[in-house]
C-alpha cells in the first residue's frame, strides 16, 4: 500500500508537471518564433487579457467541483457590466417619486457585483429547490440574462464612463495592471477557501459523493446555492473589468466566455464529474489558453484556425488526463 501511494504521488506530480511543462514548451516555441512574445510588455498584456477569464474560471471551478456546470457566466458578465455602466453614467431615475439617484464608482460596482450574485443565486435555487439540472438551469439563465442585457441597453453600447472608472481595467499599480491584481486577489481567496475552510471541504465532499455528504449533515442546497452565487458574482466582476477596459458596456459582451472558462478548468485537471480538482490547476489552464491565444495572434494565424487549434488542444489535454488517471 505504501508503494502504491508513492507511485500515485509521483504520478500526481508528473501530471501537474505535465501541464506546466506544456506551458513552458509553448512559451519557448513562441519565444523562438516571434520577437515580441518574450517581451515584458507582451507578457503583461497576456496577463491582463487572461485576468477576466481567471475570475470566471475560479467560479466555474467551484461549480464543477460540486459536480455542476454554469453556462450563464458570459451573459451574467454582460448584464452586470451593463448595469454597472448604466448606473454609473445615468444613475437611477424614479419618476414616481420624482427623484434621481446618482452613483459613485463604488456604488455602481457594488450594484454590478450584487446583480451577478443575485443571478447566480437564482441559478442555485433553480438547481437545488426545483431540481432543474445545472446544465438546463444555467442554459436558461444564459438567454434570460442576455435578453435583459439587450432590454436594458436597448441593443446599444453604453460608453464614455470616465477616466476614473477606466482605472479598473486599464490602470497600473506597482508596475502591474490592475486587472491582474484583481485576478490575483480572487485566486488567493479561492485558494484559501478551497483549502482551509469548511465551505471548501463541503464543496469537495458534495462533488465526491453527494449522498454521503447529505447523510453527514451537510446542507447540500445551501452549499450549492452559495457556489452558484459566487460564480455569478465573479462573472459580474469580470464584466466590470471588461466594461472598464473598453470604456463601454457592449450588449453582446462575454458571448461564449463560459466555454473558455470551462476549457481552463478542464485543462487544469478538474474532473467534470466533480470532487476532484484545484484552483491552481485552473489558473494554469487559463494561462495556457491565454498564451495560446496570444501566440496564435502573434504568429498571424487566422482567427478561424485559432478556434480549430484551441479545440484540439482541449481534446488533447483531456485525453492525456484520462490516460493518466486510468489504472
Amino acid at each position, binding site marked *: 500500500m505504501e508503494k502504491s501511494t508513492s507511485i500515485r504521488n509521483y504520478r500526481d506530480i508528473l501530471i501537474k508537471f505535465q501541464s506546466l511543462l506544456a506551458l513552458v514548451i509553448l512559451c519557448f516555441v513562441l519565444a523562438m518564433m516571434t520577437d515580441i512574445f518574450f517581451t515584458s510588455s507582451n507578457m503583461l498584456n497576456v496577463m491582463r487579457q487572461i485576468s477576466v477569464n481567471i475570475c470566471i474560471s475560479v467560479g466555474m471551478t467551484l461549480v464543477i467541483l460540486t459536480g455542476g456546470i454554469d453556462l450563464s457566466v458570459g451573459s451574467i458578465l454582460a448584464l452586470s457590466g451593463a448595469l454597472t455602466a448604466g448606473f454609473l453614467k445615468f444613475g437611477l431615475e424614479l419618476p414616481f417619486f420624482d427623484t434621481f439617484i446618482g452613483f459613485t464608482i463604488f456604488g455602481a460596482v457594488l450594484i454590478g457585483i450584487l446583480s451577478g450574485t443575485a443571478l447566480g443565486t437564482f441559478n442555485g435555487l433553480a438547481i437545488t429547490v426545483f431540481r432543474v439540472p445545472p446544465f438546463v438551469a444555467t442554459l436558461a439563465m444564459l438567454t434570460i440574462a442576455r435578453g435583459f442585457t439587450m432590454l436594458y441597453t436597448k441593443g446599444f453600447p453604453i460608453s464614455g464612463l470616465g477616466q476614473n472608472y477606466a482605472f479598473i481595467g486599464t490602470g497600473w499599480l506597482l508596475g502591474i495592471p490592475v486587472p491582474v491584481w484583481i485576478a490575483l486577489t480572487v485566486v488567493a481567496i479561492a485558494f484559501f477557501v478551497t483549502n482551509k475552510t469548511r465551505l471548501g471541504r*463541503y464543496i*469537495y465532499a458534495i462533488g465526491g459523493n453527494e*449522498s454521503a455528504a447529505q447523510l453527514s449533515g451537510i446542507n447540500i442546497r445551501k452549499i450549492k446555492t452559495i457556489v452558484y452565487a459566487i460564480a455569478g458574482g465573479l462573472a459580474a466582476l469580470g464584466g466590470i473589468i471588461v466594461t472598464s477596459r473598453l470604456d463601454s458596456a457592449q450588449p453582446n459582451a462575454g458571448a461564449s466566455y463560459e466555454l473558455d472558462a470551462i476549457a481552463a478548468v478542464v485543462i487544469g485537471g478538474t474532473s467534470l464529474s466533480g470532487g476532484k480538482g484545484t484552483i491552481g490547476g485552473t489558473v494554469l489552464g487559463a494561462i495556457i489558453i491565454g498564451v495560446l491565444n496570444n501566440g496564435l495572434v502573434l504568429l498571424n494565424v487566422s482567427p478561424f484556425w485559432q478556434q480549430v487549434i484551441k479545440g484540439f488542444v482541449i481534446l488533447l489535454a483531456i485525453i492525456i488526463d484520462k490516460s493518466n488517471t486510468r489504472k
Partner: protein
Amino acid sequence: MLIAKDISKNFSGVRALESVNMEIHLGQVTALIGENGAGKSTLMKILSGVYPDYDGEIIFNGKRLGFSNPSEAQHEGIAIIHQELSLIPQLSIAENIFLGREITYRFGTLNKKLMWRRAKELLDRLKLDLDPNTPVYTLKVGQQQIVEIAKALLTDAEIIIMDEPTSAISDQEVDILFEIVKNLRNQNKGVVYISHKLDELIRIADRFVVLRDGKTIESGLIKGMNKDNIIQKMVGRNIQLLTPPEVSGQEEKILEVKNLSYTPKGGTKSGMLKHISFNLYKGEILGIFGLMGTGRTELLESLFGLHPGTSEGEIHINGTAAAFQHPSDAIQAGLALVPEDRKKDGLVLGLDVRTNISLTVLDKLENFGTINHKKETRLAGKYIGELGIKTSSQKQLVMNLSGGNQQKIVISKWLATHPKILLLDEPTRGIDVNAKNEIYKLITQLAKEGLGIIMVSSELPEILAVSNRVLVMAEGELTAEIPISEANEEVIMQAAIPKSKQASN
C-alpha cells in the same frame, strides 16, 4: 457440465474466494448456499464474466474458458440473472429481450414484427401472458424477472444463474418461477439457484454447494438434506459467539418511536412502514431483523430525518418530541447513521481518511472560520488508533482501503459526533470475518459505554451474537419482539416470513 476449479479472488487485499470448486450439471438445479459475504455472488460474477481476473480455471464441456466481459460468457452459453435486475424500464419487453441482439431487415432497420413474435413465443413458454410491447416499468418485479429469464433463453444459455430470484416477489410468482425452473431443467439447462430461503432450495434443487468464508465446505445431492443440516454447514464455526452483554440500563429510555409510518415515493410496497412502535434503552443493542424490502433501511432513514413530510408518527428522544427535517437535525439531537451501502452513502471515496473522518464535525474544528488542521489530524489519529484502522497514512485515499477498514472509517466519523443513539444498517456487509469480529466487539464496547444502538441486519448469526433484544420486521410491520434469551434462528425466521406465505402453507 461446467467445472470451476480452484477459483481464488482478492479484492484490494481481502480474500473473497480461496480455491473454490464447483460443478454445475446440465439438466439439474444446483443450489449455491452460504451466508452473506460467503462469496456466492463473487463466484457467480466470475462465472458470468463480470470479474475477468481471478486465479483458477473454468471448464465447460471439456473446454477451458476465460471471459473478459459478460457478453463473452453469454456467447459461451452462461447467463446470469442478477439480484438487481438489469432491464431498461422505459423500453418494452421485446426491446429489452432483444437489446444488443436486434433482428434487422437487410438495410439495418428493425424487424419489429419478427422480434415481437419471437418475444411472444418466449413469454408463452414462460407462461407470462403479456403483450411484448408493454413497457417494462409497468411490470411487477416478478414479471420483470421472467423477462430476464426470457432474455437468457434467447441467447440459448445452457447455464442460467439466478441470484436470489425470490427475494422480492410474491408467493404466486414464486410458484410460477419454480415451474419455469423445472421446465428449464427438463430442457437440459443447468440452473444455479442462489437463495437464503432454505425451504425453497430443498424444494427445487437437485444438488448443493455450500460456501463459507470464501471456501467450498461441501457439495453433493440435496436428497436427504434438511434445513438443519444445511444451516449447520452454512454457519459451521463461525462467528465466535460473543456473550451478549448484560442489559444494564433497561430503565432509561432514550428513544421512543410511536406509530411510525412511511410510504415510499410511487407508493411501492417494498420499503413501506406501517405503524412501527418501539423503545430503545440506554446501553442496549437492539437487533432488527427482516428480509429484503421489509422496510428495515427505511425505518432507520425515517428516524434520521431523511424522509421529512413523507413519514408520519412520533419520535421522542430522551422524552422530548423530535421532528427532523434534515439529517443535520438528527445529528444535533445525538443520532448517527452508519448506512447500508458505505460506498454509496457513507464515504467520499476520492478523499482521504482524515477528511472523511472529520466531515461530520468540521464546525467544531474551526478557528476563526479556518479549519484547524492540527485538531483535525489529532481527531483522525485518535480514531485510527482506537478502532485499529489499517491505513498507510491519514492522507491515504479511502478507495484504496479494504471494506473492513472503510467501515471503521464510517463508524469513526459518527463516533466523532459523540452520538447517544447509533443506527447501524448492515454494519458488516461485505467485510471479512476478522473485521466482522472486530466490529462486533466495538459495537458491544460502545453499548457498555452507554450508547443506545439499533442494528439492522439480514444476517441471523450476527443478530443473535450481538443483540440484547430482537425486533423482527415483515412487510413494513413489526411482527415480533424477542428477548435474546428466547431468540433463535427458528423463532426469528418464523416472524420474518410474510404472513401471506404462512397462510398459504
